């Protein structure tokens, strides 16, 4: 619990999640490419001296014949509350000009891992508007084949959905990855492990006609994450259930071909409860913050500078280690980033930040994105 609360109550956490993330324009381009093009995104940022914010993604879309397609998704996410590594492979079989059946698998490196499933993909002719639904049996061969001797009484199902639609300057994107609970019993020593992860993310964006060329727009981005991890060993229960929500409402206004200004309202909530060494605890956190900055677009090079501040209201009950925690915390960062964009939708970015309130070094972030 102490480790979890260190991350839960870090006032900089949601500022970093926003600073290190891709800009709304980069994100929108990636959403449109998901089933149409190849893409790579590598994003690494420092969180603490020993901890890393890391998201590494790649996608491949191949169509060797008109009736057969291959979609590959690789993800290696390390955000502070979870770590997800996944390789997903879809073979798609076209049955109608707009409809494809999917045979889906996640090849694990041991037979007790991995997933098998089926799905449907409906897509427009250019595949930039799509709706995908997959049903996966997660680790179908777990029982009897995992090396730790764990036994799962019921199958774990995952439903993955992703959809994007656009009309004029308006676009909407949604992705959900929902799973039933995995409960694994071990005989020696007697213990029960239970895990569940549900993730959803969305992006609603409007680009007024005159702004699109200069990457202006309005929008809201959000994530909702439900995590439940528990372990009972020697009848001592440890459990953490969290509901984490994060929304960003943004506006980017192009002042000229060179200058843009942007502002983002940050809203976050993290509610949790559980048991630490058998004792119950609860915690909650509500954050509100603002980020503002300006971008100077010099063609192949782009400079970006701004400031973000956040007020965090937090509360914890049942954990004496955190009894002196201040109910209100503040965090801020001033930042500067330089970006090289040799081609459209290809960029290399470097960001450095500084904490003004505390005077501490704020961290570094580097990212590479390519859609091709």
């Amino acid at each position: 619990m102490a480790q979890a609360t260190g991350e839960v109550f870090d006032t900089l956490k949601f500022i970093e999640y926003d600073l290190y993330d891709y800009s709304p324009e980069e994100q929108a381009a990636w959403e449109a490419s998901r089933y149409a093009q190849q893409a790579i995104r590598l994003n690494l940022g420092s969180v603490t001296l020993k901890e890393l914010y890391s998201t590494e993604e790649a996608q491949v879309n191949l169509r060797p014949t008109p009736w057969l397609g291959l979609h590959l998704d690789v993800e290696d996410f390390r955000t502070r509350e979870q770590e997800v590594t996944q390789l997903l492979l879809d073979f798609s079989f076209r049955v109608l000009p707009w409809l494809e059946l999917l045979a889906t698998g996640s090849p694990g490196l041991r037979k007790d891992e991995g997933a098998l499933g089926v799905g449907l993909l409906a897509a427009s002719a250019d595949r930039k508007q799509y709706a995908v639904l997959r049903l996966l049996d997660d680790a179908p061969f777990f029982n009897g084949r995992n090396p730790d001797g764990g036994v799962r009484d019921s199958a774990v199902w995952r439903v993955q959905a992703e959809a994007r639609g656009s009309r004029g300057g308006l676009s909407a994107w949604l992705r959900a990855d929902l799973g039933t609970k995995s409960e694994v019993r071990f005989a020696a020593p007697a213990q029960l492990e239970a895990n569940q992860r549900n993730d959803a993310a969305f992006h609603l964006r409007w680009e007024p006609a005159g702004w699109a060329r200069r990457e202006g727009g309005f929008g809201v981005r959000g994530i909702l994450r439900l995590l439940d991890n528990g372990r009972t060993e020697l009848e001592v229960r440890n459990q953490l259930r969290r509901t984490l929500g994060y929304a960003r409402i943004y506006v980017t206004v192009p002042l000229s071909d060179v200058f843009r200004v942007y502002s983002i309202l940050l809203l976050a909530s993290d509610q949790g409860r559980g048991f630490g060494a058998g004792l119950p605890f609860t915690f909650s956190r509500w954050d509100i913050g603002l980020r503002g900055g300006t971008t100077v677009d010099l063609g192949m090079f782009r400079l970006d500078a701004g400031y973000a501040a956040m007020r965090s209201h937090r509360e914890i009950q049942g954990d004496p280690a955190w009894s002196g925690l201040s109910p209100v915390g503040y965090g801020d960062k001033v930042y500067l980033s330089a970006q090289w964009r040799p081609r459209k939708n290809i960029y290399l970015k470097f960001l450095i930040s500084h904490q003004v309130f505390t005077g501490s070094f704020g961290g570094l972030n580097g990212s590479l994105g390519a859609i091709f």
Partner: protein
Amino acid sequence: MGRKSHWAAMAVGMVLSAGPCFAQIPGPVLDPRRYVQAELYDLAPALRSEWEQGRYSTNEIRIGLGGYHFRDLDAVERGVVNLPLSSRIMFHGDVRNDQEPDLHVRRLVVDLWGRLLPWLWLGPSGSPAIPGSAKESYAVGASGLVGDLNRERYLLARLVLDATFYNGLNREGGHRGAPTFHPEVEARWAAGEWSVYSRLDLTSLTETVFPADRPVTYQASARGEYEFHWRYARRQWEGDVRFDLLGLRDDRDENGQPITNRRLRTATHMEALLRPNLGWPLALRLGARLLSDSLHSRAGDSHQLFRIEPGFRVGAVWEGATNQAELGYVAGLPHFALTLNGVQRDLPHYQDSAYAQWQYSPTRHFHLRAQVSCGLAHPVFGGASLLVLAQF
């Protein structure tokens, strides 16, 4: 593995059970069927050559999954990205996630090259962690690529320092007295009907000392890998020679007991595909191989396992325009020589598999392969595998 084909493994296991320290030998090393199966699941020489050719010229994915065991999987998951950011700057990414039943390699390495001369690319290299948990796993270094215009003939040299910031950033309290050097050299040359490919990947000895209150207080590991592939291909026949070498060292002090493990594995393959002029698109595949695997361990008792395995392969291939079907037979004669505290035992075996495979190649650079096999000497289901190889 089926009940009958367990005979050989059981015989080996019975002998091994005479010494408790043999429990440390990974089970797959003792599996007599293992390399027969590995031969089946491997890339055909023509596809391997295609993969080698595209390493620095195009984007590639290769996913191969095969299993005959209930627990383990032979998995090869690799990807290569070569992305010209501009005419003078190129991004290269190489991801590898391979698992044999007892060996696992997971690595991502990226290079950002600037073109200094029409044939010379130089730049920084690095390796983020997978999973991206901690900064301690970062590797940084530099690399250079010499290549022809389309980079299908190349020489790559890369040197990175693995876990560069380990001492300051690791959470286990480990300390390393010297950096870990990870040099790699990879080269390919092709002219007309022949090509040669070679790759060397070394990880220097990494010695880590942990605090005295941890179960493992000292660990030393090193790894070396070498591949060589020579190929000659013309319409009437193709010939291939391959040599692979893997060396591993893993020493540790665990609960006060020093444990040492050394392993050296080599494999030599020779294969030919003959296309006699019969009027049908039929070809004959012939292959021979010799494998050796030696394992020395010391943990209280000392033991030594030496495995030598000659083998052969024959197959008939029907080569259609987009479809290719193959029926064949693979055999191996593994011979185990065991030494436990100075006492020697020898165990010979015969293992085989008959296989059928179908390969679908709708475009020149997209291949799907499905394969199924069964044992004949020990009648049993031999396993199945799937392979995707694509360049784009």
